[in-house]
């Protein structure tokens, strides 16, 4: 409830207790089955389980990042980034507003379910905006990409509050984005 009115308490509860929990449960199940299959030397099962692991494991990884990406306004949510990340954003995108605009455009245009990310390529030390479908983690778009910020654009993330108006959800979520976490990750990767 602390992220209201940008995201309703009901959504947060469902999202965390039900959706994220389901990903974890199914991920653990898939891992158990994988373990068995490896022990038995059952290669075809091992390969078959990959998509379930990618989906549920990805769901767990992505949502764990997501919770760190959000903070109530009274704890600094929405406060724009400073220091090296702020500087990098201005250099690369011109301004924070233009970054937000770009991310929102990508997020709104995403077909079906997925995520929109602000990431950093730790080899090139460059900021990137990417989208991934379903629960694919950012690293599937490039092995050197480290996620700084991810926004869940699955319908479950906003439906109860925003119905099908995804752009409104995207506009409002910036008010509770936790830039402090993003800055920490950035500095760690680019120090």
């Amino acid at each position: 409830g602390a992220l209201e009115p940008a995201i309703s308490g009901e959504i947060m509860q469902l999202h965390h207790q039900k959706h994220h929990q389901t990903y974890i449960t199914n991920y653990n199940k898939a891992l158990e089955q994988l373990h068995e299959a490896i022990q038995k030397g059952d290669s075809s099962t091992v390969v078959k389980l990959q998509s379930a692991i990618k989906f549920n494991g990805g769901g767990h990884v992505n949502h764990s990042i997501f919770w760190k990406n959000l903070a109530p306004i009274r704890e600094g949510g929405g406060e724009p980034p400073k220091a090296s990340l702020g500087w990098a954003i201005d250099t690369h995108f011109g301004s924070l507003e233009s970054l937000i605009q770009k991310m929102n455009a990508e997020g709104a245009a995403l077909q079906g379910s997925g995520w929109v990310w602000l990431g950093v390529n730790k080899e090139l030390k460059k900021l990137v905006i990417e989208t991934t479908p379903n629960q694919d983690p950012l690293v599937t778009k490039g092995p050197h990409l480290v996620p700084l910020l991810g926004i869940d654009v699955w319908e479950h993330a906003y439906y109860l509050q925003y119905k099908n108006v995804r752009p409104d959800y995207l506009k409002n979520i910036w008010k509770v984005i936790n830039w402090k976490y993003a800055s920490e990750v950035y500095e760690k990767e680019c120090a």
Partner: protein
Amino acid sequence: MGGGARKPTEKGKKEMACQLLLTDFTLPLKSLKLSHSGLRLKGRSIGLQKASTTVAYYGLKTPPYNLDDLEPYMSKRALEVHWGVHHRDFVDNLNKQLGKSDILYGYTMDELVKATYNNGNPLPEFNNAAAEVWNHDFFWESMQPGGGDMPNLGLLEQIEKDFGSFTNFREMFVEAALSLFGSGWVWLVLKRQEKRLVVVKTSNSINPIVWDDIPILNLDMWEHSYYLDYKNDKARYVSTFMNHLVSWNAAMIHMARAEAFVNLGEPKMPIA
């Protein structure tokens, strides 16, 4: 098409079933723009003006029942948003896109879906509009008040032939629905080449007609379809659909029509 005003009685349900036969939802509505440009020409118009631009566009079809007829299995609120907002937006998007394109003028809905699928590289604007309009039109028809139960006659025979038993089919359908990753649809489809019924799951907006197969039934597994009524309980949504919503009447009609295109068996010729 109408059909939204009457409370379904037993006879009414049969009537509704007949309505599906009569509905040719591939008919594009011609624009009213003709009268517009007529007015323009009547007024002072510069000689070199373009001739009247005729634009084909689509209307939002109403489901063949009232929005609260599917309670308590699918709430009126869910239908108001799913049909009234989502489906309406898809139709509006489609019309906007059609307004900008000359090439797609005069296409039927089926042709639009296939053309914009572009052999596997769907043009996003179109596919998000044309295919979703098609899919949702079909979805409303795949459900009915007092649905569920089992099919009869020929369709049941075909299901038993292709799946072993109705129970097997139901299990496969439910499993496909629950194992879909992300957004998509589940279909009962008659495959043209293989001449049999199969259960198919597709991602996002993909529709089996792009592979030239014939849909018999579909189920919307996008989260928006069940979230308001079932939150994240997909399993309950799917089993409720199978138990109370699925329209085997509509399926039988689609099947009957499909058999005009696919020869499912030896004709029963009298032996001289």
